[in-house]
C-alpha cells in the first residue's frame, strides 16, 4: 500500500503482527489489513478447508445495545429477536422502508444487552440508524475490542486446548470463556462455510492471543483475499457487492432469515414489500453460476440468457480454489433463476458459457452439536 493510504488507514491491534508475519497490507474499509501473507491466497484458502486459519476481523463493528432491546430491535431487523434465547446468535438484516438491506449482521442477546457485529464499511451508518430509532437504549461501538476468527475443521480441537468448554458449544452460540487470563466472548460462527469461532477480546490482549493460536501446528494466518474466496464458495453475501440498500431479502435469497412470527406479523421496515415478495416472489433473485472453462467473471459482468437477452449482473465472482474453477454470484430475472438454467457471461467481449447452480458452491460444514 502507498504511504498515503497507510497513513489514512486505521491500524487494528494486530497491525504489527501482520507486518511481522509478512502480510501484504492494503486499505480496506478504512483499515490497514493483510490481503494475504507469504503463503498466498490459494494456500491460505485450502488451509482453511483442511485445517485451520486465523483472520483478524477487528475492523468489524462490535456494537452493544444496553437494556432489554429485543422488542425495539424488531422494528429494525427481520429476525425473531424476542424469541432468541440469550447466548444464541442470529444472522439478520437491517432493512429500510423500501425493504432494501442497510446492513447484514450477527445479533446475540444476553440478559442485560444485545451484541451486534456489523460490517466495517457500515459502522457509522448502522450506529446512527440504531441511535435514531432506539432512543430509549444506549447504542455503543466497542472500539476497545479486537475480533479474531479461527476457522476450519481443526478450529475446535485447537481452541479446546486453551478453552476446553468450546468443544461443547453449538454452532451459532456464544459464551464468555477465559483463554489463559483473558476474558473472551467466544462464538461458534464464521464467514467461511467451515466450523469455527469468533473471539472477541480486549484490544491489548489480542496480539498475544493471536500469537498463541498461530503457534499451534494446524493454524496459519489468512488475509482478506482468502476470506473473500471462502465466503464466495460458501455462497455468503458481501454487503456492497451482493446486497445493498436496493436489494431486498427475498431478492437476495435471504428470505430464510425472516422468522416465522415475523412473516406473519411483519413490523420491520419495508415489511409490506418484503412479505409480498415472500408470498408472490420477486422479479429477480441472487443465484450461483458455474462457468465452463477457467476464465473468471468478476463483479459487474453482464449475464445473458440462452437467447442472448440481458438478464442480470454478476455481484461477486472469481476463482474458487476448492473447486479449481471459476464461480460467480449475481442477480438474474426470476425466469432464469432455476438451477440448471444455461446462461452466458460477457467477459472482455467473449461469451463464457455457464449454468445456474444451487448455493453454496461448497457445502457448509457447520458443527450442529458440540
Amino acid at each position, binding site marked *: 500500500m502507498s504511504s498515503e493510504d497507510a497513513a489514512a488507514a486505521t491500524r487494528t491491534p494486530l497491525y504489527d503482527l501482520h507486518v511481522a508475519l509478512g502480510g501484504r497490507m492494503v486499505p480496506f474499509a478504512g483499515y490497514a489489513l493483510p490481503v494475504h501473507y507469504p503463503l498466498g491466497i*490459494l494456500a491460505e484458502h485450502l488451509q482453511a478447508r483442511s485445517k485451520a486459519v486465523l483472520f483478524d476481523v477487528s475492523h468489524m463493528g462490535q456494537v452493544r445495545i444496553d437494556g432489554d432491546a429485543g422488542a425495539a430491535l424488531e422494528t429494525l431487523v427481520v429476525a425473531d429477536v424476542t424469541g432468541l434465547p440469550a447466548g444464541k446468535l442470529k444472522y439478520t438484516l437491517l432493512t429500510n422502508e423500501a425493504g432494501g438491506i442497510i446492513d447484514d449482521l450477527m445479533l446475540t442477546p444476553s440478559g442485560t444487552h444485545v451484541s451486534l457485529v456489523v460490517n466495517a464499511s457500515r459502522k457509522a451508518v448502522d450506529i446512527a440508524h440504531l441511535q435514531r430509532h432506539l432512543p430509549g437504549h444506549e447504542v455503543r461501538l466497542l472500539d476497545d475490542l479486537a475480533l479474531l476468527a479461527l476457522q476450519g475443521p481443526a478450529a475446535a480441537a485447537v481452541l479446546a486446548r486453551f478453552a476446553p468448554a468450546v468443544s461443547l458449544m453449538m454452532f451459532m452460540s456464544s459464551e464468555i470463556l477465559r483463554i489463559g487470563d483473558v476474558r473472551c466472548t467466544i462464538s461458534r460462527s464464521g464467514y467461511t462455510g467451515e466450523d469455527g469461532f469468533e473471539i472477541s477480546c480486549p484490544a491489548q490482549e489480542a496480539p498475544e492471543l493471536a500469537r498463541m493460536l498461530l503457534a499451534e501446528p494446524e493454524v496459519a494466518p489468512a488475509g482478506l*483475499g482468502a476470506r473473500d*474466496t471462502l465466503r464466495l464458495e460458501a455462497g455468503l453475501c458481501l454487503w456492497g457487492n451482493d446486497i445493498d440498500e436496493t436489494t431486498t431479502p427475498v431478492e437476495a435469497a435471504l428470505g430464510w432469515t425472516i422468522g416465522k412470527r415475523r412473516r406473519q406479523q411483519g413490523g420491520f421496515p419495508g415489511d409490506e414489500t418484503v412479505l409480498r415478495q415472500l408470498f408472490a416472489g420477486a422479479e429477480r433473485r441472487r443465484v450461483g453460476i458455474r462457468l465452463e472453462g*477457467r476464465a*473468471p467473471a468478476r463483479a459487474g459482468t453482464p449475464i445473458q440468457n440462452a437467447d442472448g437477452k440481458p438478464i442480470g449482473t454478476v455481484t461477486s465472482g472469481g476463482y474458487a480454489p476448492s473447486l479449481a474453477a*471459476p464461480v460467480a454470484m449475481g442477480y438474474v430475472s426470476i425466469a432464469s433463476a432455476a438451477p440448471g438454467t444455461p446462461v452466458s457471461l460477457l467477459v472482455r467481449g467473449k461469451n463464457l458459457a455457464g449454468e445456474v447452480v444451487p448455493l453454496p458452491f461448497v457445502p457448509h460444514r457447520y458443527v450442529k452439536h458440540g
Partner: protein
Amino acid sequence: MPVIRFTQEHEWIRVEDGLGTVGITDYAQQQLGDVVFVELPAVGMAVAKGDPAAVVESVKAASEVYAPVSGEVIAVNEGLADGPELVNAEPLDGGWFMKIRLSDESELAEMMDEEAYQAMLRSLG
C-alpha cells in the same frame, strides 16, 4: 546472444534473431499473487507497442499485459491454458506468454536493460 529488455509495466522480452519471447517479471507475479487464468492473443494478430495483448487473472483481479514491442504474434504458450500457475513458478522461463516477430527492433533501445529495471524496482521500495 539474446537481448533482454524490460518495460515500466513489468513485462520482459527476450529477443534473438528478430523474434521476441514475452512474459511478466518475477516482481509482477509476486504483486499479482496466485495466477489462475491467462487469456492469450490469437496467433497471427498484429500488435503495436503498448497495446493490451493478454490478460492475467490472479485470485483477486484481472490485469492487462501489454505488447512491449510492435510486430506479429507468431506463437503463444499453450501450456498456460492448463497450467497458469507456471506464471508464478517460472515467470522468466516456462511461464512465458507469447512470441512476437518484431517489426521495428529500434523500439528495444527505449526499453530498460536488467540493471535499469532492477534500479526501478529498488525505487519502488
